[in-house]
């Protein structure tokens, strides 16, 4: 199964995402802000990155930019976890290189369906 990096400053969201994905057999690593996410991505090659937009220290959009600047993450799917009220954030995320997004609030089934969509 896939190696997934989940980056979100909210421990409960991260927990929910990680628990759901682990339940589906994936290997999940958690990071709580963009900077730590980049560190993790440098250390390990992940198959998929899930990134919250609003985070302290480094937000999700800067992190996506950082990931795309790394050779190893040129074509790796990155999904932004956005809220319905932030259409412009989706576009900003896309401009930074995100593959797509998952709109919060989502439940475990929606998460799995979306992950399945990118990982096949």
């Amino acid at each position, binding site marked *: 199964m896939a190696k997934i990096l989940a980056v979100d400053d*909210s421990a409960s969201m991260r927990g*929910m995402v990680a628990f759901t994905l682990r339940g589906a057999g994936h290997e999940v690593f958690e990071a709580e802000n963009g900077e730590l996410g980049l560190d993790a991505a440098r250390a390990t090659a992940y198959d998929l990155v899930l990134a919250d937009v609003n985070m302290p220290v480094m937000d999700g959009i800067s992190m996506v930019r950082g990931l795309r600047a790394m050779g190893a993450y040129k074509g790796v799917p990155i999904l932004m976890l956005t809220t319905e009220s932030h259409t412009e954030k989706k576009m900003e995320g896309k401009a930074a*290189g995100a*593959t797509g997004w998952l709109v919060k609030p989502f439940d475990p089934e929606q998460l799995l369906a979306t992950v399945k969509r990118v990982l096949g």
Partner: protein
Amino acid sequence: MSAVDLTQFHKTFFEESHEGLDAMESALLALDAGSIDTELVHTIFRSAHSIKGGAATFGFADVAAFTHVAESLLEEVRSERRAVDPQLVDMLLRSVDCLRVMLRRSSAGQPVADAESDALRAELLRLVSGEVEAASPPTTDTVSAVSGWKIDFSALPHLLQTGNDPLRLFRELQQLGRLEVVRVFLVEGTPATLADVDPAQCYMGWELHLHAAVARADIDAVFDWLDGDCVLDVSPLPTAEAPAQDTPVQATDTTAAPQADVAAQAVVAGATDTPVQVVRETPAASAETSSIRVDIDKIDGLINMMGELVITQSMLSEIGENFQLSQLAILREGLAQLERNTRELQESVMRIRMLPIGSIFNRFPRLVRDLERKLDKRVKLELHGEHTELDKTVLEKIGDPLVHLVRNAIDHGLESPSRRKAVGKSETGTLKLNAYHEGSNIVVQISDDGAGLNRDAITAKALQNGLIGAGQNLSDAEVADLIFQPGFSTAAHATDLSGRGVGMDVVRRNVRDLGGSVSVRSVSGKGSTFTIALPLTLAIVDGLVTAVGGERYIVPLISIVESLRLTASAVRKVAGGGEVFHFRDAYLPIMRLHRSFACNEAVTEVERGIVVVVEEDGRRVGLLVDDLLGQQQAVVKSLEAHYRRVQGISGATILSDGSVALIVDVGGVVHMGRQSKVA
């Protein structure tokens, strides 16, 4: 696999939401001071945003709805469409309060929204310009009568770099119905020679026919992430081509089914405030109080220490296996190392329960702000030593006494601006909170530069309440001590804020319950300083080891006033069989510990034993013991957990020689003394 139990994340959600609200509150207060700092605005916004997201995810609909409105307002501030003014900050602070209540209710499984929260939400909503409350229902564009779609899809060169894969799109389209790739072509701008082709770029386009009677929106949903990464043209296929329609229709059905399921679950999750849920939620709420967040550094330190202990242990067992006297020096060294390891390990373990006092101090900027407005005073709050760590239990219980002292300082201590000006002080009073280590204690000081204790008013009141007699000459310390006496604080003194039936005596009792002490130093016209000394931990008590018969009793040092030897003539018998002795202008009862705890072979003549004068709640008694054996730090073990509650005993400990000693509960013993006198 669908049933992921989300309730397991509720506790984390509540914890982080409360933390978020704390961060929001302090950022709002900092904003209030007049600094428009974008980082502060971002912090506030981020907190609200996270709470909203979490609340919606975990099914706390009322919290999500409320936060949504607050967030919209904050979004206007963030995008500089709205200026920050005191009214806005006020309203947002009220929202923080309201959310705290809503979260607490959510975690207790109680109904969340009430008239107050609804009113505040309506108020916020009125402020938010052009906010449309309900999201427009999804456009249910009816499945059109088309039999299929022609899709012209040309990738832009950077498509692959966004992590999107055309193959994924085709797979998804196939799930809608039969997909036919009619044509594959190179897009315009494709390099003419192979050498110029960048393998990371995509130069291809596809003409696809999707034979499925699906809505246009279903196709758009497949391409939703590719806006700006491709050129897409979708048009209905000519109907002439219509193939068998059974399969595609079924396909849409199966994709629709899980969707309905999801919706149904959302409805169930949204109904958390029904009474049925209350029972289920309660255990989770009580579990919340018993968890602690520990800094990873502390745990790493602990593991490190454990490793060293294991090394020492293996070294010692190696020596022990084949011991010769010539190795004595090495053995000693090993034992010294073991001692060091054990001490360090003990310290590290204790540190796990330690939390910075900053979490309590952080309440005060808000409290001070509210009091300033209510009392029409001006206060500058200074916080020092926020990183000083305290035992979690002590920390939880010290909050209320501190709040009381801060209220008192502002209400009674600091003068009104006009009064301050009149006596030549700055109109803004200063209130300082300071926390620091001192020996094995933590000291918390609350000092103000107000008028100081009013000696005349205090003695007058004490006289009136019968705490002192007329004509009694009191030292400054004794006057100061009067305010801690039960029955000192009276209704005449009470304002809206201080003196809600809670007096300084309660503060002192609460602090004493934690094994601490509170005192006040005051200079007329210059201000007062309240000093609370607290033990580092409740798990260790500094005590005096005494002998009574063959037993050892430990008296906590904090309660001891003095130890003395009496002559037989100093003891007087009083009616009812009690004994008293004269001590610093007062007669104190003697409690014979051997009698209280039924010890045999103890010293029974007062002049042969030693009297330890202890104080509890302002009451002093002399405890008669055989001898004093020394001072020791005792690790408190609960008697209740292993045996049962014993009156006059707060716990037990193990002495260095391996014997057990009981720790005297001074309050309990004093109480026993009073009871026996009545009897």
